[in-house]
């Protein structure tokens, strides 16, 4: 009998190779769906534009600013919002039900690689297509709403890291949430509660500085702020360096917490799946 095959390369190069290949495939696939992608992105623009108009109206009523934010700054916030929102899109927790039902999960379990890499790699590649498609949308929005945007170099650099940090935080944490599906099919209400909390406490609805104090303190200890409000503020908010670096550190912390959570919960999930067969 032939000896068991050893992988050709070590884990680091192996994962790197996998991610690059996976991202390349995602780009090739999503580029084919660029029209559908555009439809989705344009539809998504409605939400921040509505918020923008409402708050700008209030600002103008109150003599040019509300909570210290001018219409131009609101415009900057909500236009950057559209990029951050797109970077935030990850494998939906609702997708686990179909995955289990269609047997796709079995296929993933037969691979010698943790399935989360497949999701991380694919969506990461997709992001590159999204960023390219987003540029014209941002240009049009800027023309229409005149954002007040003057980022410093450090803002841009931190932002570049922060959007990927946001992607990773959301990926791992929603993977954990999605795994609830292994134990129950009535996941809708649970997911909805989490998403609503995210809407209110992440900076998606309004810049967090406009929220009541108790909400801001709550937002500081939850992961949501670091996936939405922080990346946006990093670019538009002229934050002091300490906050910029501190924010990145918080992102790293939430990624680590999520990664550990994935390891632990996944083990239980697979065991449960193995016992009852999904």
């Amino acid at each position: 009998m032939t000896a068991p095959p050893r992988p050709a390369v070590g884990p680091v190069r192996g994962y790197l190779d996998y991610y690059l290949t996976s991202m390349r495939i995602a780009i090739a696939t999503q580029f084919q769906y660029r029209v559908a992608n555009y439809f989705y992105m344009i539809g998504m623009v409605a939400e921040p534009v509505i918020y923008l108009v409402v708050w700008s109206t209030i600002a103008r009523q109150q003599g040019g600013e509300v909570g210290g934010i001018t219409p131009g700054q609101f415009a900057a916030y909500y236009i950057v919002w559209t990029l951050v929102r797109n970077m935030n899109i990850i494998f939906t927790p609702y997708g686990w039900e179909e995955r289990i039902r269609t047997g796709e999960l079995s296929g993933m379990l037969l691979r010698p690689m943790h399935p989360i890499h497949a999701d991380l790699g694919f969506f990461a590649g997709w992001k590159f297509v999204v960023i390219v498609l987003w540029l014209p949308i941002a240009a049009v929005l800027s023309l229409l709403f005149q954002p007040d945007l003057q980022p410093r170099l450090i803002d841009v650099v931190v932002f570049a890291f922060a959007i990927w940090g946001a992607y990773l935080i959301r990926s791992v944490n929603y993977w954990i949430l999605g795994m609830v599906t292994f134990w129950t099919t009535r996941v809708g209400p649970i997911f909805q509660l989490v998403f609503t909390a995210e809407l209110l406490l992440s900076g998606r609805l309004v810049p967090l500085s406009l929220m009541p104090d108790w909400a801001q303190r709550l937002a500081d200890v939850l992961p949501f702020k670091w996936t939405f409000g922080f990346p946006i503020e990093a670019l538009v908010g002229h934050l002091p360096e300490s906050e910029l670096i501190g924010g990145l550190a918080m992102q790293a912390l939430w990624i680590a917490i999520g990664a550990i959570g994935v390891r632990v919960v996944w083990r239980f999930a697979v065991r449960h799946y193995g016992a009852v067969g999904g």
Partner: protein
Amino acid sequence: MPQPAIHVRDLRKTFRVPVREAGLRAAFKSLVRRESREVKAVDDVSFDLEPGEVVGFLGPNGAGKTTTLKMLSGLLYPTSGEATVLGHVPSRREPGFLRQITMVMGNRNQLQWDLPALDSFDLIRAIYRLPADQFRQTRDEFIELLELGDLVNKPVRNLSLGERMKVETVGALLHRPQVLFLDEPTIGLDVTMQKRIRSFVAEYNRRLGATVLLTSHYMADVQALCRRVVVIHHGRILFDGALSVLAARFNATKTIGVVLRDGTVDLSAYGEVMATDDDRVTLRVARADAPEVTTRLLRDLPVADLTIEDPPIEDVIEHVFAGAAEDQRAEAEAEAEATAATARSS
């Protein structure tokens, strides 16, 4: 003595299934108390596969075939008993183990839908961390074996079902696994495609010495590929041995097809009439009687055409199951009789 490639001893898998009778009353009851019963999907199954063997796993739906395969590939955890594949315990799902096996379930899609198969092959290379040149060699070898040609350059969604199964099969074997679990690999394919896949699997087994455990509804798959079959029903093994032995042991009849030159005659005097389509009558007779019946037919009637065949092996299997059902019923009756007897005497 070399280790068996697959070793299964007293393997058992039981599921808890909720039980609910029809009717409103039962529906209300089930709200308060969930009743469930245990279903033995796999009931103390034991067998060994030597490296390089190709074994057919036969049984009706729900017999426990797929459950056994899933336990051997690590997808399900056994309730009790032991199973080792290539020296590994499947449920541990070690990467070293997973790299050496493959499981192909008839309708599974593991390739990217919108891209050419070649791209998906590259992804598989990355997942299994295959050495680049060995991967390319294997890939080209398989493409040639299955005569895929330019199909690998077309998006998978543009391929027909048969073509898709071919590229999926290649994808499943690119990492040169030593153990193959094939669950209904030719289901839904036309006859030509079935033959193609079969010969590919046979060639793969020949070239790599891989061990193959294959389930199928199509006896042609089993007859073409397997010298040994394991028959399973209600989670229990009914037969484990050479296919020829199975046929011989349970094959009590022969099928005679008769075409008469003119008109139709009632042939029920010669044997059991199985079918009459147009002018062809199919008779079933006991194996021992076949020569004598044939002689009488040729002597008595204006026969235009006559064929003598073994019954399709499906019928043989039917027999095996019917026999097993008979045994089960006899067992149950004997048990009931025994309990009644003890009740009477105590």
